[in-house]
């Protein structure tokens, strides 16, 4: 566990040294404010439900920017050799990398607290849905970053790993969103697809409902992609 934290800490620090992190930080703050003020008007409910929904879409493009360098960078610079010859397991490496990215994602969410302040100033918000909304965002972010960690272990090229992450996330969002409405898809398959739909699972969190099955969906799919990432790193040893 200590090793995981060591790796995670180094990852966060190095993220703050990379220009891409600041671009992501700026775009996330800008994007979240735009989405927020789009729905911010007199007589509208004092909630962030619309903002949260919008952020889940925005994160598709921005979070892969954080995760794309996680493991690919180590292979590119050769530092992976230092890590893999240390008494460090591949699981510790992957978990540490993911946790580091999660730490940076938390930083991304901090500016959005200003928006909570705005609602507080102009209305009387219900803090329950706000809290579950943030929990939901963390779960979605964890899932996207797990996909990103996996993709960053595939190629030492950061652009490829970015594109691959966006593509994979789209399978769970856009593609399912569109296909599950297409008439040529059988109803059973549509329902199965609905179950994979990230935004569908997130909806409840925005409304203030903390449904365990939704949590399980995110935790298990995050674990699945982290597991794939570990296997991928292990397999690199055999090449």
């Amino acid at each position, binding site marked *: 566990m200590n*090793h995981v934290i060591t790796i995670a800490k180094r990852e966060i620090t190095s993220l703050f040294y*990379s220009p891409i992190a600041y671009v992501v930080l700026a775009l996330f703050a800008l994007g979240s404010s735009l989405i927020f003020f789009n729905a911010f008007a007199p007589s509208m409910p004092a909630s962030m439900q619309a903002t949260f929904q919008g952020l889940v879409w925005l994160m598709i493009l921005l979070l892969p920017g954080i995760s794309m360098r996680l493991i690919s960078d180590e292979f590119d610079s050769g*530092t992976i050799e230092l890590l893999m010859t240390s*008494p460090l397991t591949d699981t510790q490496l992957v978990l540490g990398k993911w946790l580091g990215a999660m730490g940076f994602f938390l930083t991304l969410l901090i500016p959005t607290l200003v928006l909570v302040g705005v609602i507080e100033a102009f209305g009387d918000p219900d803090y329950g849905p706000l809290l579950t909304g943030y929990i939901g965002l963390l779960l979605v972010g964890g899932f996207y970053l797990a996909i990103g960690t996996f993709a960053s272990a595939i190629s030492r090229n950061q652009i490829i790993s970015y594109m691959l992450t966006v593509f994979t996330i789209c399978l769970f969002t856009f593609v399912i969103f569109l296909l599950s409405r297409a008439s040529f898809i059988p109803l059973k398959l549509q329902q199965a697809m609905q179950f994979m739909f990230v935004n569908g699972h997130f909806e409840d969190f925005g409304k203030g409902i903390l449904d365990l099955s939704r949590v399980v969906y995110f935790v298990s799919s995050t674990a699945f992609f982290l597991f794939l990432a570990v296997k991928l790193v292990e397999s690199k*040893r055999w090449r």
Partner: protein
Amino acid sequence: MIHVENLVKWYGPTRAVYNISFDVPEGQIVGFLGPNGAGKSTTIRMLTGYLPPTSGAASIDGMDVTKESEKARRQIGYLPESTPLYMEMRVEEFLHFRGKLMDMPRGDRVKAIDYVSDRCGLQQIRKRVIGQLSKGNRQRVGIAQALLHDPKVLILDEPTSGLDPVQIGAVRQLIQELKGKHTILLSSHILPEVEKTADRVIIIAGGQIKADGSPSELRQRVGQGASVLVQVKASSESVQKAFAGVEGVEAVEVHQQGEWVKAVVKPKPGSELRERLGQTILTNGWAIREMRNETASLEQFFIQITADQSQVAEESVA
């Protein structure tokens, strides 16, 4: 301390290392010498647990590098070939990071970082960002991180590549100073490098061990059959004729250089020619300006082995 048995590595259809076996006793400095692409780094990477061998086994201090990989890795301080470091980190920060990965408690880390900073001359640059350091200083940081946890075995892959002569001298001296405290395996493709620091040289080419012994042993092996070089004032025909008649001479080669003749006399195995050649020169009354045993250097031996590598590589494909 290091035990390697029939190590083999194939990268797909390419054979990188074939049947390498050697043992390194505790405290020895071993130079791993070979041309680029000989399989040095591959062998080292298998020893450090970075690459699994295709077949064969290796162990560090009795711990198998594949079966007890993590334990074995703890015994090793390793400087990879290209000195990979995190460019955005400060030297001290990086050393702390390495120490944490080696499970050193904070107190030990601080002491060890002080020690290796002294040893590797990092005191002045401890707070500097690694990306802004010169190649030589980065190399020092690389060696410092390898030394940090006081490993039993120190494996340095090309520790002096890309350094200037002064820096090479400094690294060489550092390695000398570490002698006795660690078992050291260092690789190089430059012979004098290894010849000066190592107790023992293993020459590897085409993925196989070509020679193994102390530098002086190897030199002796090369020295046998060294020819004698003589320069006398005479005609080349007479020199050729006179030297060919001397007992123990295998072959004579003469070159006319103005009024001097340079003769390279190759002895039969085991014969010492200089005395008899001198006698011959005296008898003929020639003026002489040079006579010496042309000691074949390790360099020549190495070049000879290296030249064979391409041939070996072709065999491996066939």
